[in-house]
C-alpha cells in the first residue's frame, strides 16, 4: 500500500482555482464516499480550507494518484488541464512530511497560526466517521495532530502577534494578566477599532463601551460588539473606569491631551490604563505616555510588534522542521514495518505450499518408510527450509527498519517473486493476523 497526497494551496494556486476546488464541510462525507468507490483507493481523507484542498489516500500503487486527480476533475466537473499545473503530489514519507508541516503551521499563509490544527482534526474526524480511514491514515492524522501540538509547545512558532488585534491582546495580557472582567472603550466607530475591540472581547475583555461623535453610529457598533454607547463628550468619565482605550476617530486634533489624562489618572487612583491609538492622525497626544501607569501604543508600535513577531516566527521554522523531520522518520519506520509484514507472511505461505507439494510428489516413492522415518524426512525438509529462509527473513525485517528500506523491500519482492499487488490483496494493513507475522519468524527457528 502507498501513501499519497494530491493537492494545492495558497502557494501553488490563485484563489480563483482554490475556491473552485474547495469541498465545503457539508459535502465531505459524500465526496469521501465517491472517493472510496474509486478503484485501488483503500483509505482517504480530504483537507479543505480556504487556503488549501488536499486529498490524502492510501492506494495500491504510487501511480494511483492519477485516480485521485481524475476524481477531483470528475467531482468538480472541471477539466484536468484547468488545475493540473497547480497541483503538488507527494508520495510516501514526503506525503507524511507534508501533512506534518501543514499541522505544525509552517505551510500556512500566516506561519504558526493555530486554526489549521483544528481544521486538520476536523478533516480527520469527518473521514473517520464516514469509515474512510483505517490503520495508516488513522495513525498518520493522529501523529499529525501531536506534531502540531509539539511544534507549538516546543517552539515559539505560534507565539506573538499575527495582526494588530493580536498585538493589542498580547500587550493587554502582559499589563493586566487575565482580561476577563476588563472594560474596553472604543473611541470612534471605524472598522479597525471595532475589529480590535472584537479581538480583546474574545480574549476576555467582554465589557465594551463605544463613543462616537455621531451617537447613532456609536449605538450601531455597540450593538455589534454587545456593548453600550456613550456620548462623545463623556469619554473622560468613561476612561476613569475603562482599562483599555482604543483610539480610532477621524479627528484631525488629538482627542486626549496630557493634562486631561493626568486628571483621569487621579480619578483612576493610578490604576494602569492601556491606550491603543490606531487612528491616523493620532487621537492621543504622545506626551501622555510620560505619565506613570499609562501605556500608550500607536499604530506604528503595533505594526512593529507584528513585524517583529513575524520575524521571530520565521526563525522558529527551522526548529519546527526538525520536529517534523524527526516525527516523519518515526512514522516512515512504522510504515516500513507494515510493509515487511505482508511480505514475510506471503513468503512463508509459499514455502509451506512448496513443501507440501514436494512431499505429495515423492510420497509414493517413500511408501516403504516407517511412520517414524517419514516424520524424520519431513522434519529434515522443514529444517532445511527454515535454515535457508532464516537469514533472508531476518534481513527483510532489518531492511524494513532501515532508511532506504522501501527500495530494498522491493528487491526482496523481486527475488522471491512475490508481486506487490498480490501482497496488497492478501494483507489487510494492521489487521490481527499480519501483526503476528514478524513474531512468527522468531518462533519457528
Amino acid at each position, binding site marked *: 500500500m502507498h501513501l499519497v497526497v494530491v493537492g494545492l494551496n495558497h502557494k501553488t494556486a490563485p484563489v480563483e482555482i482554490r475556491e473552485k476546488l474547495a469541498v465545503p464541510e457539508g459535502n465531505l462525507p459524500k465526496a469521501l464516499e465517491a472517493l472510496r468507490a474509486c478503484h485501488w483507493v483503500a483509505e482517504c481523507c480530504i483537507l479543505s480550507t480556504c487556503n488549501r484542498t488536499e486529498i490524502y489516500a492510501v492506494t495500491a500503487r504510487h501511480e494511483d494518484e492519477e485516480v485521485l486527480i481524475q476524481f477531483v476533475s470528475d467531482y468538480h466537473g472541471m477539466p484536468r488541464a484547468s488545475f493540473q499545473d497547480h497541483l503538488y503530489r507527494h508520495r510516501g514519507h514526503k506525503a507524511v512530511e507534508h501533512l506534518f508541516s501543514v499541522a505544525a503551521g509552517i505551510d500556512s499563509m500566516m506561519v504558526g497560526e493555530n486554526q489549521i490544527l483544528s481544521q486538520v482534526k476536523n478533516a480527520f474526524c469527518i473521514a473517520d466517521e464516514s469509515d474512510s480511514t483505517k490503520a495508516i491514515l488513522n495513525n498518520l492524522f493522529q501523529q499529525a495532530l501531536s506534531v502540531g501540538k509539539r511544534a507549538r509547545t516546543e517552539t515559539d512558532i505560534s*507565539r506573538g502577534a499575527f495582526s494588530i488585534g493580536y498585538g493589542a491582546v498580547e*500587550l493587554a495580557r*502582559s499589563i493586566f494578566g487575565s482580561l476577563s472582567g476588563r472594560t474596553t472603550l472604543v473611541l470612534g466607530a471605524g472598522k479597525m477599532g471595532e475589529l480590535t475591540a472584537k479581538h480583546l472581547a474574545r480574549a476576555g475583555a467582554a465589557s465594551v463601551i463605544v463613543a462616537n461623535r455621531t451617537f447613532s453610529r456609536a449605538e450601531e457598533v455597540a450593538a455589534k460588539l454587545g456593548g453600550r454607547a456613550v456620548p462623545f463628550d463623556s469619554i473622560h468619565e468613561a476612561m476613569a473606569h475603562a482599562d483599555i482605550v482604543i483610539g480610532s476617530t477621524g479627528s484631525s486634533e488629538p482627542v486626549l491631551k496630557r493634562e486631561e489624562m493626568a486628571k483621569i489618572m487621579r480619578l483612576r487612583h493610578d490604576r494602569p490604563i492601556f491606550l491603543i491609538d490606531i487612528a491616523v492622525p493620532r487621537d492621543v497626544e504622545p506626551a501622555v505616555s510620560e505619565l506613570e501607569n499609562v501605556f500608550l501604543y500607536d499604530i506604528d508600535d503595533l505594526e512593529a510588534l507584528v513585524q517583529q513577531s513575524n520575524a521571530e516566527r520565521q526563525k522558529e521554522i527551522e526548529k519546527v522542521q526538525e520536529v517534523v523531520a524527526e516525527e516523519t522518520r518515526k512514522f516512515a519506520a512504522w510504515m516500513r514495518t507494515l510493509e515487511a509484514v505482508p511480505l514475510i507472511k506471503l513468503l512463508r505461505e509459499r514455502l509451506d505450499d512448496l513443501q507440501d507439494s514436494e512431499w505429495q510428489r515423492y510420497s509414493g516413492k517413500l511408501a516403504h518408510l516407517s511412520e517414524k522415518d517419514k516424520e524424520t524426512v519431513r522434519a529434515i525438509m522443514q529444517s532445511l527450509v527454515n535454515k535457508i529462509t532464516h537469514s533472508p527473513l531476518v534481513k527483510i525485517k532489518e531492511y524494513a527498519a532501515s532508511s532506504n528500506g522501501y527500495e530494498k523491500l522491493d528487491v526482496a519482492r523481486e527475488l522471491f517473486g512475490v508481486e506487490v499487488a498480490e501482497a496488497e490483496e492478501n494483507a489487510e494493513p494492521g489487521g490481527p493476523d499480519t501483526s503476528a507475522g514478524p513474531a512468527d519468524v522468531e518462533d519457528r527457528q
Partner: protein
Amino acid sequence: MTSALLGASLVAYFAASVLYLANLHIKRRYLASYATTAAVVGFTLQTIRLVAQILAHATPFADAPEAIFFLSWATAALYLVVLVWFRLPAVGALAMPLAVVALALVYRFPPAPGEPLASDSWLRIHIVAIVASFALFTLALCCAVFYLVQNKLLKSKKLRGMFRRLPPLETVDALGHMLAAIGFPLLTLGIVTGIVGVEMAKLRLQISSVKLFAAGLTWGVYAIYLLAHSTTGWRGKRANWVLIVGALLTALTTALHRFA
C-alpha cells in the same frame, strides 16, 4: 546528617536558580518544570532537616544559623505557594537565588556556643515572626523587581526576548502588595515581642539604639506604603521601589543583630 541535608538542599536550590534564570532567556520545553522539581527537592530536604532540628531540641531557630536557615526555608515555601496559586515560575528566577544566598549564609555563622539565646518564649515568637515577615518581604521584593523590569520594557516598547516570559504587570503589583500586607502585622508582632523579650531578660541582653532605629525605620516604610496604598490606591513604579527599599532595610536590621 543535617549538614549533608544542608549541602544537598543548597545544591538543589542552586540548580533551580540556574534553570529558572535560563528559563527567562531561552525557550526550552520543560525547563521551568525541571527548575520547579529541583526547588521542590531542595525544599523537601530542608523540611526534613527542619523537622529533625525541632525533634532534636525544643528551641529551634535559636541561634543565627538556625534563624537564617529558617528564613531560606520560609522563602522557598512562600515561593512554592506563589507558584501554585499564581502560576508565576518567572518569580523563581529571583526567589530561588535569594534562598541560595540565605542558605549559604548558614555556613558563614557558626552555631552560638552555650545557652541558646531564644530560650525565652517571647524571643522565640520574635524570631519566628520576624523571619516569616522577612520571607514575605523577600517575595514582595522579587515581585517589585519584576514589576520594574516589565514596566520599563512596556514603557520603552522593548518587547523582545524576556518580555514574554515575565509575569503580567498588574499581577506582580497586586501580589507584591498582598505579601507586604501580610508581612507587616508579623513584623509588628516581631518587633513588639523582641522589645518585650529583651526587657524580660534585661540582665543578660541589651538592645542597641541603632538596631531599634533601623527596625523602626523598616516598620515606618511599610506602614507608609500600606497606608498610601489603602487610602489613595498608591501603586506603580515608586510604590514598587519602596518595597525594594523596605526589603533592604529588613536585611540591614537583621544584619545589625548580634545573636549572642
